[in-house]
């Protein structure tokens, strides 16, 4: 039986067939036919943010929590350009998104038509792949393919730009394409696995180095099994936090620029680095020439382009991490590795992550730990970008994969609130905690009203130092003029602003008992902003100066 459908109806039907039940976007002229077709859908729920960038990050929150492809929509011109930052952010953190944008009709492309911009050209370097759809028929191929590309291999964002006349033209459909899904990856090279196992067996001082790929691959359990079987001290990148519980006996915590001193020092001494789903990012490695100078390297990644990109691997394995680790595990001999683990434990004792004032809920670390005490490991922890992000990474007891959502690669201020809303929508049974700063929250504060509208179970913890903390810190430490343009002379009344946007708010500074006020805020369902002033002079320590070797940490003994 054939049906006659417009391109817009076809698009919505293809999204339904992909299993999309929740999406977000912002309407405008060039995408109105798709919105009209969405109005006909009985299965897709649409969430309306208050800015297109909010839509991009809400979709990211959904994708980061579920691991599934999430969808966001925008119109042409400014609507599409507003989406771009969230797409670039998804690219750098390998988040599977399908972004659909409306475009001016084909006949008007290239005429500087109203709200026309070359979205295909603009999105080229920030997407995994992109499409400018040139006929209604093509949608049948492009949409399933976009989902397959977003989910396959190293995940990432795919953009589909659909001219308005492609959306409005009707065609007859006889056969529907299969939904696009993750394509299988070739199995790991058995010889290389055997070699890797031999290196691990022979290593005296190995370190397991986990990256965000472990989370994407759903391979955390296997990585933990490998660490435990071979007693491998383990460091995690910012993106991998939660892959191994940070309080696990083998965990050294986060490595890199603001990593735990013991993690950076142990890595310095290792003779074998086993990198799994990590890409040797500069924030993790510091000065590359001084990164693991004595170590052989085993590198397992889903894409060949990551091998030998920054550091040459002695054994490079291209594979799905789950498959590779499952086959590697039986080949690796059990080994108590007592001497090395005793050395690492001594480093942990002598050079822990400095966490001063942990008992004081009015200090930044104290507040983070008190918030953690209000929820259990089922809670989702989102951050914005800045000092608060690093402090949470250092101090929050992250214990499970997909518990931790943060903008790692792009470091996008404004990420927190909309991503947290997306997380709350994708996992309504969980509490979502969003740590943010007075700089970051203002970059997408309009989404507070979205949080109110969807009644997200979201607790926003605002660490307010009236400054752009990380900028202020770098200027103070490394620049002659000190803080320039990094302190705010006037700040909004954040609790009043939150209430004006329709969400509850509590000011911890005014509370006689901050612990009780915090517990009370968490006990009530729905969105709430929790405001706390902190000291602008506080630094994120330790800090490896940009371009320096990881051993040269400032503030490691603080």
């Amino acid at each position, binding site marked *: 039986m054939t049906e006659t459908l417009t391109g817009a109806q076809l698009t919505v039907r293809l999204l339904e067939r992909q299993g999309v039940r929740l999406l977000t976007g912002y309407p405008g002229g060039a995408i109105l036919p798709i919105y009209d077709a969405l109005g006909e859908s009985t299965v897709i729920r649409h969430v309306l943010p208050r800015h297109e960038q909010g839509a991009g990050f809400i979709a990211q929150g959904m994708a980061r929590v579920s691991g599934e492809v999430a969808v966001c929509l925008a119109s042409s011109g400014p609507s599409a350009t507003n989406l771009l930052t969230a797409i670039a952010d998804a690219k750098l953190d390998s988040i599977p998104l399908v972004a659909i944008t409306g475009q001016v009709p084909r006949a008007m492309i290239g005429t500087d038509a109203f709200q026309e911009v070359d979205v*295909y050209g603009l999105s*080229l370097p920030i997407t995994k792949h*992109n499409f400018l759809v040139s006929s209604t028929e093509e949608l049948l191929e492009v949409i399933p393919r976009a989902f397959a590309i977003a989910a396959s291999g190293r995940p990432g964002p795919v953009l589909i730009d659909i001219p308005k006349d492609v959306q409005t033209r009707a065609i007859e459909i006889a056969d529907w394409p299969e939904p696009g899904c993750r394509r299988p990856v070739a199995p790991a090279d058995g010889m290389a696995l055997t070699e890797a196992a031999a290196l691990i067996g022979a290593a005296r001082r190995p370190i397991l180095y986990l990256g965000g790929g472990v989370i994407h691959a759903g391979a955390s359990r296997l990585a933990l099994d490998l660490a435990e079987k071979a007693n491998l001290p383990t460091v995690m990148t910012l993106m991998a936090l939660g892959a191994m519980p940070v309080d696990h006996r083998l965990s050294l915590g986060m490595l890199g620029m603001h990593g735990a001193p013991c993690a950076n020092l142990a890595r310095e001494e290792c003779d074998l680095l086993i990198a799994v789903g990590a890409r040797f990012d500069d924030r993790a490695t510091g000065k590359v020439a001084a990164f693991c100078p004595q170590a052989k390297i085993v590198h397992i990644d889903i*894409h060949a*382009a990551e091998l030998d990109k920054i550091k040459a691997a002695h054994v490079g394995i291209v594979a799905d991490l789950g498959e590779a680790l499952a086959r590697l595990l039986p080949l690796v001999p059990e080994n108590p590795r007592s001497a090395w683990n005793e050395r690492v434990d001594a480093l942990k004792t002598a050079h822990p992550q400095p966490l001063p004032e942990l008992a004081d809920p009015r200090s930044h670390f104290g507040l983070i730990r008190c918030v953690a005490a209000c929820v259990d490991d089922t809670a989702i922890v989102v951050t914005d970008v800045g000092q608060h992000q690093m402090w949470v990474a250092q101090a929050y007891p992250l214990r499970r994969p997909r518990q931790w959502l943060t903008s790692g690669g792009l470091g996008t201020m404004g990420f927190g609130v909309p991503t947290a809303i997306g997380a709350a929508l994708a996992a309504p049974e969980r509490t979502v905690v969003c740590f943010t700063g007075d700089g970051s929250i203002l970059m997408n504060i309009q989404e507070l009203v979205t949080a109110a509208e969807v009644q997200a179970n979201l607790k926003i913890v605002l660490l307010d130092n009236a400054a752009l903390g990380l900028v202020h810190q770098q200027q103070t430490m490394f620049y002659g003029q000190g803080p320039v343009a990094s302190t705010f002379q006037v700040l909004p009344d954040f609790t009043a602003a939150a209430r004006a946007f329709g969400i509850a708010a509590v000011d911890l500074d005014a509370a006689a008992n901050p612990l009780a006020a915090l517990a009370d805020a968490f006990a009530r369902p729905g969105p709430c902003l929790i405001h706390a002033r902190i000291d602008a002079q506080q630094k994120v320590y330790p800090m490896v100066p940009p371009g320096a070797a990881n051993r040269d940490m400032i503030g490691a003994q603080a």
Partner: protein
Amino acid sequence: MNALTRNESRALARAVLQIDVANPPGVMSHVVGLFSRRAYNVEGILCLPVGDGRLSRIWLLVNEDQRLPQMIRQLEKLEDVASVRRHHAEHAVFAELEEFFRP
């Protein structure tokens, strides 16, 4: 040709890349964009459809530096790229076109 004169750039080691691609509009931008955003100079470009026109073949003449193996891996990662082959600079494809590029 950027800042290098023709003679200077000839003195550098070269490589010729043969890239088979699917043929949607924009595939050239994907390929060339990989090079341009890494400030990797492309000295020569040729592109024509192959067979029934669903595939195209792109020939690139590039300087050979240490980044080239990584560039080839990045090319292979592109959705529309079917295969990449690396040839020596003496490959006939650009050599035989020389006569069309005499000043």
